[in-house]
């Protein structure tokens, strides 16, 4: 059955329209959780607000579990799902640069668009910077092309690397995530700030 587009159940244009609807859901959930607030996002790294950790990992474990169950019921063919390839050095290098950008800018690309939509000017500045960054990457591409393509490992799954089944790995990640949520709530109490309110249900 799924993915619908691969099995030709929906047309390309329907796919784009659904992308728009999915985006609305994405943006709505991000904003409702306060991902449009850079102080909330950055709070993760100082322990006073670990919403990012909670939302992010809850989404990841729900997504992983959901996909496996859908595959089990025959609703989706996992072999058609896009697995992002691993180029060891550029994945890590890119991640490090993004991490630095995150702590300085206070947003990541998805959340910056979301924040800009409700009028955050710092998010607009971040988006402007992001365009510059991409432009620099595109213009100087020959300079880092080698690094970009170095150490290509195909598109392995973590479960394959560890030699476990996907289900077992998912279960372990669920346990790790729940442990981190516990730590997160503890840290929110420990590092609570007088000038910052969590303001959530």
């Amino acid at each position: 059955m799924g993915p619908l587009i691969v099995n030709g159940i929906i047309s390309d244009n329907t796919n784009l329209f659904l992308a728009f609807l999915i985006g609305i859901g994405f943006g709505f959930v991000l904003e409702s959780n306060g991902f449009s607030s850079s102080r909330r996002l950055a709070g993760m790294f100082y322990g006073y607000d670990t919403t990012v950790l909670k939302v992010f990992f809850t989404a990841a474990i729900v997504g992983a579990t959901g996909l496996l169950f859908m595959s089990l019921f025959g609703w989706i063919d996992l072999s058609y799902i896009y697995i992002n390839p691993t180029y060891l050095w550029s994945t890590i290098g890119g991640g490090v640069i993004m991490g630095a950008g995150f702590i300085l800018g206070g947003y990541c690309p998805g959340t910056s668009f979301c924040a800009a939509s409700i009028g955050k000017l710092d998010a607009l500045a971040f988006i402007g910077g992001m365009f510059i960054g991409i432009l620099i990457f595109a213009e100087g591409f020959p300079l880092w092309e080698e690094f970009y393509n170095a150490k290509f490992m195909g598109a392995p799954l973590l479960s394959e690397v560890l030699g476990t089944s996907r289900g077992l790995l998912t279960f372990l990640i669920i346990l790790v995530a729940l442990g981190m949520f516990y730590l997160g709530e503890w840290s929110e109490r420990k590092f609570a700030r007088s000038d910052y309110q969590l303001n959530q249900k």
Partner: protein
Amino acid sequence: MKQKKYMNPYVGGVLLGLVLIIAFWVSGRGLGASGAAKSAIVTGVKTVAPKHVENTAFYQGYLETHPQPMKEWLVFQMLGVIVGGFISGAIAGRLKFKVEKSPKITSKTRLIFAVLGGILFGFGSQLGRGCTSGSALTGMAVLSLSGFLSMAAIFGTAFALAYFARKLWI
């Protein structure tokens, strides 16, 4: 108008996970953000300097696989994000032009660092083939090695540098 409270993070996480699953079910791919920005950049450069695009291998390579950069899945998804964010903000009474920052720094400082962070993030997302949503979140949901690697690299670096950037936030 007083702001409404944010959603419970676990509820939000479950909802986000469901959105992610729907995206997989519909199109076999997860969510993403920086890809849309890249499409916009390529389109922009192509409009401003078509000659330059013809002579640059990077743009040509991109246009070969994405003949119509603005008709990409991620572009439409990103337009949706803007609309969705706006709807949620409107419902919760959070629509307001403002610069969010620590009380200790000026707006100008905040904006300078936002641009700087944006440049780094834009560059890093291209190098790492995806940002927090496209590479880390989506990658982790499909259990891909690169998803976990980029998640660890992004959050690890941010934690490591948090001390030096503390003035910006606390």
